Structures are given as C-alpha cells and as structure tokens.
C-alpha cells in the first residue's frame, strides 16, 4: 500500500517491499475478518441484504433468459431463420407476427430468384427460403357436404355391385341422415326469415328446398341416385350456411426448401406437399385448437390443465366453464351421426358409463358432466367409444380448403388448396408461435396476394425490362382453352401435368393474376374446373422462384456472425442494385421482439431500484457501524496506523462481505433455479402459455447469471462503503480519545 522504500531500488529491497505488502494485506484481511466477526449482527444484516439481492438477480435474469431463449427457439426455428431479408423500399418494417394495424405493408421482391442468387454468393449464408406471410378466412365443407360425400360413396359402391350385405342398411341410414339435415336447413331458414326481418332468399332456392323436402324426392331417389345427389350437392348444400369459418395464418413458401431449412419440421399426419404442387400443410396446434370438435378439444385442455398444472375441476372456475360449454354443444355431436351410428353410440355409451337411458342426448349429457373423480374415465370413454363414430376435425386431410383473402388492391380472391398434411416443429409442439402457422405453396400465396396496383406492376415491368408477362398470359389462355377438362362426375381422373413446365421465363404471378380475374368474372362451374386443374398442376422450380416473394429467411453457417452478415447483405444490395434490408430475428418478430426487450428493461429497472435502496440501507448500516468504532479506529490511528490503512481495512471488510454473501446468494439463487427447472413453472394463463412457449417453463441457469449477480453485489457493497470509509478516515486519534471521556 505504501510507496516504495526510500532506499535505492534493488532486487532485495523490491522483494522486501513485496513481502511487506503481502504482510500488510494479510493483516488487513485478518483485521477485517476479526471486525466482521466482532460485529456479527451488522455483518449478518448487511450480508443478508446482499444475499437477498444476489438471489434476486440470479433468479430474475435466469428466468428472463429462459423465456427469451424459448421464444427465440420458437421464432428462429419455425419462421424467422437467423436473419430476415426484405425490401428496403417497404413502407413498414417487417413484423413476422403482424403489428397493431395488421400485417406490415412490405414492398415485394418481384423476382425472388435474383435475391436468392445474390444472397447465395455470401460465404456465411447456408440457406435461403422465400416467404410471404398473410392471414385469411378459410372454409371447409359443412355437415351436409360431408353426409352427401358419404352417401355418394355408398351409392357408387352399390352401383359397382359391392356384395356387402350391410350396404342396403347403410344406404338407408345415410339417406335418413341427409334427409334430416335438409329438414334442419329448412328450419334454420325459417328462423332466419322470422328474425332477420328480411327475405334474402330467392324464389328458386326456396323452390329447390321444397322439392328436396317433398317425400316424392326421397321415394324417387333410387331411380337416378347420381342425379338426385347432384341436385342436393349443387342446389341444397350451398343453402346450408354453417360451413366452418376459420382464420388461417400462413406462410407462402417453397415447401421443400422450407422443410429442409427449418429442420425441426416433421409431418405427423398425411404427407408433405409434393414438389412443385399447390397445397397447404396445417400446423398441428392450430389444427387441434381451431379445427377439432370443440367438445373434444375442451376435454383435451381440461385434461392437460389437470395433469400438467394439477388444477382441479372443483376449484377452477375456468375448467368448470369449459365443462359447462360442452354441455350446451351436444347438438354438434348428435347431428354428425346418422340413425345407424346413433344406435351404436347409444349402445356403447350405455355399456361404458353404464347407464340405462335410451336417449343419446341424455347419455352425452351424462358423459360430458365431468368431475375430478370421473374425468379420466369419461375422457377415455369419449375417445375410445364415441370418437371413432365422429368426424373429430372440421378439416380433413386430402380435402380442399377454400381460402379467401383480400388482395393488395382490395378484391376478394379465393383459392382452393388441398390439405396435404399436419406438421409440427420438434421441440416446439406447444408453442403458439410455431404451432399456429400453416405452410402454403408459393403459387397459391401469390394468387391470394394478388397483383399490386396497376402502376406498381407497370413500374416493376419497366424495372425488370423483361417482357415475361405477355407471352405467359397467352400461354395460360391457350392452356385454359385447349387443356382437357375432366368429364363431369368423374373426379379423381385428373393427372398432374408433370413434364410440361412451360416456358422457363415465366413470371408466375402474372399467370395467376390472369386466371383469377377470369375466375372472378365467371363464378360458375368453369371456375371450379379450372381450380381443380390448377390444384394438380406441377410447377417447375424456375416458375416458383422467378416470382414475387415478400421476405426471405436466411440461415447462416455461423449464426454468431449475424451483425457482420447483416452488414454484408446491405453492401451486397447496394452493389447489385437490389433493395435489400436485413434484420435479426428479434427485430423481424416486430412487436413480439419488442416485448422481449421491454420485459428485459423492466427487470433491469427493478433490479436497479432494488439495489439503489439496498445501497442506501447498507451505506446507512455501515455509517452507523463506523461511528460505533470511532474509539477503535482512533486507537489504531494513535498506535501508528495511517489513514490509508484505515481506508483499506474498511474496503477489505466491504469486499469480504460482498464476496461471501454475494456468492452465497448466487448459489442459493442457482439452487432455486435448479429446483424450479426441475419442477417447472406452470403456465396458468394463456398469456403465460404464450411467453413460456408451452404449458410449463423449465428455466435453465447460465454461468453469466451467476457472474452478473456476483459482480453487481460486489460493486454495490464496495460503493456503499465509500462514505463510511471516508468518515472513518477523518477520525483523528485525539477525537477518539476525547470521546472516551
């Protein structure tokens, strides 16, 4: 501590100096420890506050890091990639999950292949995936559609001479079911007319319905079943209003490239979208939450809450409400069943429950009246006995989904896409970020996205200086004219037009746009056929890539060099004249990303406040302790201790307390996190579910959390010893003696 000895510096004296310093330090530490032990109470109190602070820092930062990480994993692994690139000409900033006024307004890349090619020249880029994200209304068939489909199937089997002895009975049951639904349609319409005070039905539709309700129609059904079916499908089914309306959020992309780059993706039902074809893959969580029979889904969720969160039906109001809602939706189940199936359901339920009630609704009511005691049993009965008779999902694999979206110019466009499969991301099964997204082919996306305004399109055309649009339009028109439409009543004969990729210089968007406009003009059966033809068309990679994409996900070989690569992409864009703007995942996530930053900020402020108050209190305690030791310090000074020594002594004391209790606190915090990590924090509300990316958060500890905590408390304890140390330094031997009296 003291400066070098006045004698000439030599090796001996230097060594002696070192030794003296070491001795001094040892003395200081011993003095400090003695003092700390002597005033144990003060040490414990100051130490307690420090310990408490360290625990809070460790637990708080570890929790936040874990939430941050689980969100990052969900977002990067399911949609964002390491980087997102979009056009710098965009009006809004990219927000993968939308902002407050909906999805951002992005200027599209008119030709994705140029962007892809440019990005691939960068050494750190591993993969690029084209994207376009949007949300639209989708509808699948209604109950009548489905019943008719089954009836048609049975009729066809009968006509093909199927020898199954059960067939006539099946047919009768299905006919009865369809007839019952048609009656319901009429009842519904009467209700509508009475309540809405406006007759919206045209006379023809009412005449059709009257015809379908007449006994003569059903008696004559067998004379020409196919004609009768066609009548029901075309004239009656559209009058049944209750086709399920869904909101679907999709990313239009090259499904193959998407699945390769987002390697966690796994198809759990159905198949992937075949290369170059149109179609959609639904996210499993979305499929479960929105397409599943609500009663079944509620049972699942009640079970999840009971098992994962140990919630009890008897105590939890939300669970009770779910259970009650199922009771008011029994009709959703009964109307799916034809008389034959109803009989089976009654028999099964009577046996399983057990019950003697002959009425299906009463049996279902009994089944769905759940308590903590019978829940498991009823859940099993529902899935083992009842579910096989039901369509559990309103959208089925292989079925086509009609997606209606407003294009950029405000026209309503609809596209039929086949549901090929259901997928999820491994490890992110419960994350709503990952699980609510569906994957659609890029062609359908472009159709739904529509053209830009006429002048924008003109601008792009000029920019590209490639006259691709016209020849293509002609090509499509020719195909529409001369392409062989399938014979009516013969579905399934469509063959993919593989091997006819068309001119490779196509701009696919213009093709789609032409078709859609035509389709809007003639919304008749011709449009349906064209849709069917479109659905089976196979596009070449060139067609897919040389068109519009809104944003591009970029995967890096070395994700730690993100900032560098963002820079490189910006420079690349400038060099090549492409309007490229690259952002990291957090920025790409828009508001969601900001939320993470915000919660970090809130924690930081909270920690700051806590330590500010702690600083005052510790300081206070130390000042008092110092004042108590006036005599002692005065004595020390009297026997020759320098002011510096006193200062050093107090600092060593503060450091020792900070280190000891800080470490202890950090260890306690680490222990708490370990414990919580082992048990998991249940997500008691949907909001927490969202933040935790699942039903439970299992926080993990990083070395950084502990280091940070120790660092902060050490700084705080040293800072808080400044003032008392300064006070102590000023104590003179005389003052100390005087106080003794």
């Amino acid at each position: 501590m003291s400066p070098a000895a006045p004698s000439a510096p030599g090796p001996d004296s230097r060594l002696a100096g070192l030794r003296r310093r070491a001795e001094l330090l040892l003395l200081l530490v011993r003095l400090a420890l003695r003092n700390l032990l002597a005033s144990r109470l003060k040490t414990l109190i100051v130490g307690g506050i420090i310990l408490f602070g360290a625990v809070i820092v460790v637990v708080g930062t570890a929790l936040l890091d874990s939430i941050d990480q689980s969100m990052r994993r969900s977002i990067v692994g399911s949609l964002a990639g390491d980087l997102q690139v979009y056009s710098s000409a965009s009006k809004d900033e990219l927000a993968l999950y939308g902002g407050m006024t909906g999805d951002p307004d992005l200027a599209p890349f008119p030709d994705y292949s140029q962007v892809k090619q440019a990005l691939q020249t960068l050494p750190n880029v591993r993969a690029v995936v084209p994207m376009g994200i949007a949300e639209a209304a989708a509808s699948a068939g209604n109950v009548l559609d489905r019943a008719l489909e089954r009836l048609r199937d049975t009729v066809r089997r009968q006509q093909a001479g199927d020898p199954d002895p059960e067939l006539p009975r099946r047919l009768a049951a299905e006919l009865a079911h369809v007839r019952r639904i048609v009656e319901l349609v009429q009842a519904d319409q009467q209700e509508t007319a009475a309540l809405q005070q406006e007759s919206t039905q045209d006379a023809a539709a009412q005449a059709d319905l009257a015809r379908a309700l007449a006994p003569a129609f059903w008696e004559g059904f067998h004379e020409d079943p196919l004609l009768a079916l066609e009548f029901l499908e075309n004239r009656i089914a559209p009058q049944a209003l209750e086709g399920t309306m869904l909101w679907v959020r999709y990313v239009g992309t090259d499904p193959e490239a998407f699945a390769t780059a987002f390697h966690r993706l796994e198809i759990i039902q159905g198949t992937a979208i075949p290369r170059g074809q149109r179609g959609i893959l639904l996210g499993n969580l979305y499929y479960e939450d929105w397409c599943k029979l609500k009663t079944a889904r509620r049972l699942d969720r009640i079970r999840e809450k009971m098992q994962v969160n140990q919630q009890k039906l008897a105590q939890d109001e939300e669970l009770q409400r779910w259970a009650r809602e199922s009771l008011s939706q029994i009709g959703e189940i009964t109307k799916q069943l034809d008389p034959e199936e109803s009989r089976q359901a009654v028999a099964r339920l009577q046996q399983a429950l057990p019950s003697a009630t002959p009425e299906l609704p009463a049996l279902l009511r009994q089944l769905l009246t759940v308590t903590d005691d019978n829940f498991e049993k009823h859940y099993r009965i529902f899935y083992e006995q009842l579910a096989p008779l039901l369509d559990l999902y309103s959208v089925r694999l292989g079925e086509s989904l009609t997606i209606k979206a407003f294009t950029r110019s405000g026209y309503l466009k609809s596209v039929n896409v086949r549901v090929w499969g259901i997928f999820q991301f491994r490890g992110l099964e419960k994350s709503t970020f990952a699980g609510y997204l569906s994957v659609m082919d890029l062609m359908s996306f472009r159709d739904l996205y529509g053209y830009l305004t006429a002048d924008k399109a003109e601008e792009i055309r000029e920019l590209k200086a490639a006259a691709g649009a016209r020849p293509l339009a002609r090509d499509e028109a020719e195909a529409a004219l001369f392409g062989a439409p399938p014979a009516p009543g013969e579905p399934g004969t469509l063959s993919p037009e593989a091997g006819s990729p068309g001119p490779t210089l196509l701009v696919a968007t213009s093709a789609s746009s032409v078709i859609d406009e035509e389709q809007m003009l003639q919304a008749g059966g011709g449009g349906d056929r064209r849709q069917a033809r479109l659905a089976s068309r196979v596009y070449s990679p060139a067609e897919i890539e040389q068109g519009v994409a809104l944003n591009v996900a970029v995967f890096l070989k070395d994700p730690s060099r993100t900032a560098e690569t963002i820079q490189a992409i910006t420079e690349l864009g400038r060099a090549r004249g492409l309007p490229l703007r690259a952002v990291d995942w957090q920025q790409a996530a828009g508001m969601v990303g900001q939320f993470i930053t915000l919660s970090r900020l809130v924690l930081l402020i909270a920690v700051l406040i806590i330590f500010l108050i702690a600083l005052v209190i510790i300081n206070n305690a130390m000042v008092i302790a110092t004042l108590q030791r006036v005599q002692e310090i005065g004595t020390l000074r009297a026997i020759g201790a320098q002011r510096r020594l006193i200062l050093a002594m107090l600092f060593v004391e503060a450091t020792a307390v900070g280190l000891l209790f800080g470490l202890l606190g950090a260890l306690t915090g680490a222990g708490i996190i370990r414990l919580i990590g082992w048990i998991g924090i249940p997500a008691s509300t949907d909001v927490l579910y969202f933040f935790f990316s699942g039903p439970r958060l299992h926080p993990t500890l990083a070395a950084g959390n502990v280091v940070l905590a120790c660092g902060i408390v050490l700084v705080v304890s040293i800072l808080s010893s400044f003032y008392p140390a300064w006070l102590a330094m000023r104590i003179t031997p005389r003052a100390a003696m005087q106080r003794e009296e």
Partner: protein
Amino acid sequence: MGFTELGIAARNLLAHTKRTVFLGSAIAAVTGLLILLLGLTAGIEQTMLRSGTVLMTGHVNVGGFIKTSSGQAAPLITDYPAILRALEGHVPELHHLVVRGRGFAKGVAETGGAMDLILGGLEIGRETGFRQVVRPVAGSLDDLAAPRTILLFEEQLPRLQVGVGDTLTLSAPTAQGVNNTVDVRVVAIAKSVGLMSTWNAFVSEQTLLELYRLKPGSSGAIQLYLHDQRDAVPVAARLREVLARAGYRVMEADPQPYYMKLFQRVTQEDWTGFKLDVSTWQDELIFMSWILSALNALTTLLLTILGVIVVIGIMNTLWIAIRERTREIGTLRAIGMQRRGVLRMFLLEAGLLGGGGTLAGAGLGLLVAGGINRLQLAVPESVQVVLMNDTLVLAVQPAAVLGAVVAVSSVTVLAAVYPAIRAARLQPVSAMHHFG
C-alpha cells in the same frame, strides 16, 4: 407528556442528522416509487376506461346474438325499441344510453391502402359522451349523420392513405355468408384516443344496416353509461333478471368480450333464435386485464422486496441506536421514565421518521409524476400495447397517495416495535453502567 416524548423523539432524530437523512431518504424513495407505480396502473386503467368505454363498450351493454342456424351467429339485437321499453325505469343509475351497431369489415381505399376495421354504427345526433372524447382534426362529426359516411382515426391514415372527402370501400360477410360491399365517404378524421382507436372506425347506423343488409330496428348493442361505472356489475345482474322477466332469453354471465363469445361459444351452441347478452365494460375489455394483473404482480413483488430491505434497514439502525444510547435510556429510566415511555419514545421516533420520509417521498413522487405527464413522453409500440396509450400518463390519485403514506409509515413503526421493546426492557442500573 405526549409532547415531551414527541420533543425528545424529534431531538433525537435531529441529533443524528446523517442517520435520519439516510433512512428517511430510503423511506422517501420507496414511497415515491409506490406512488409512481400506483399512478402508472391507475393511468392505464383510466385510459382503458376512457377510450374503451367510448369506442367499444358502455358501462353495461345489452347486446345479443342471433343464430339463424345452429352453426351461424351474428352479434345483433332485433327490435331494440322493445328492449329499451323493457329496461325503462329499472336503471336509476343511468346517465345516458346509446345504441350502437357492431361490425367488422375490411376497408379498402382507392389508393390501394387497406386494413381491417372494427366498425361501430352510431347515430351521431344522439351521442353525447362520444363528442367529448373523439375530437376531429379534419372534417366534422355532424357529417356522420349522412348515409354512407365514415369517421377514421389519425393512426389509420398512413395505412389507408385517404383524406376527408375520399371514398373507402367496406367489405364484410353478411349473415347469409355472402360478401357485401358499401362505398363510404370519409367525413371526419379524429385525433387518436389511445391504442384502441388504431383499429376502430365509426359509420352511421344506416351504413352498417346497409352493409349487413338489415332492416331498421336491428343494431348491435344498447350501451348504458352510468353515473358511476363501479355500479356496472350489480346493474348488469339486475338487467339480466329484468329482461328474463320481460320474456327474453338471456345468456348467463361470461367474462369475455362479445366477439370471443361469438367465435368460441355461441356458434357451436345448440340453440337457434335470439338471445340477449348483458355484459359489463370489464367483460368487454377483459383482454386488457392481464396487463393490469401483470403490472400489479410486478408492483407487489417489487414493493415486497423493497419493504423487506427497508424493514431490515430500520431494525438494524434502531438496534444500533439503542445500543449507542443505552446510557441515555438508563438515565431517562433513572429519572423516572416508565418502560412504556421508553417504548413510546422509540416508536414515536420511528413514526416521525416514517411520517417525514413518506411525506417527502409523496412530494417527490407527485413532482416526478407531474413532470412526466407534462413531458408527454412518447413510448415505443410494444409499450403502447401495455399502456393503452401512445404517451406515458400517470394518474396519481389522492387516495393512493394517502394509502402509500399510511402504509409505508406503519411499516416503519412496526419495524421499530421489537428494538423498542428491547430498549424498554433495559434495567436503569445496568444501562447506566454500560459503556458507549
């Protein structure tokens, strides 16, 4: 005697200036913080209530659903004059009521801008509270009386790129499942009233009926505004009974906004026809409640931690002070002060310290809050979602200030109880023998 003790306590505090200042400032900081946090929560609640109850809900709403088939539902009430007659005389708390249409449509401008809008259908002539909150920056609210007109908020302009006089096409699916469009003229642009005006727009009732192809007499909901919004829950319960007695089918209370009921519940339910649904403003705005509860949780947690630190600090200080003053206590006891007196003296000291500290803290909190409100600090989008506002507003209520002062002072006094008891237990003789 009380004054003597008070005097002694005050003298003691003054004698130890440094300690008093330190401890007092800690107490003041905690009080100030408490007041600011409470002000923040109240500010959010106030904004929510103000913009929410003008834009989306009344204090109590009588809405309803029509199920034209068992799978199709619309948020409509029919023949609302009859419902109004049924309500008459049953709501003495009523300030005023309005009838609002409910709708949801895509708005598309000629410029190519488009966005989803939640539509309110209103008869501007009958709206009173609306004019006090929604202030036009361009155009005039009165023009909303004309058919096929719309009022937009300024936040929607960058997206839609329209001005007063321009045309906007609204497109929405009707109850028949067909899409219908109506062209409307923008007659007014209003100043933002917080987050909710981002996606709300208002059209004349007539326009909404036209868009949904409905006949007059249908609307979305009757919104009742009460003198005191705290009466909402009992009034809603009473109205449920009144309406049921009048022969309406009334849905059971469910704390969800109407559109959640529509999508999640009503569509799948077995009944068809018409049911009324009485809801409160808390139900309709429940999607915001998680923000308040999260904020409350954070406030509680933070204050608990700070409370513990302060209590430890106070106990520690008093403890040491008592040791320091053992001889003084001995002397006081020797000259006749009772144990109770000693106890009272120390508690008084803590009380004075607490009172002074909290009052200083309250003053500081009020100053900071006033400063923040005056600055009109703009906040980023993610914070706006939490604050329900585009600037930071702290609503410091007198009751909250008083509560904070009383709470923190009591904690201070309570923390002093144990050390004070210890001091009171000292024997005069041993205390006088004690050295320093």
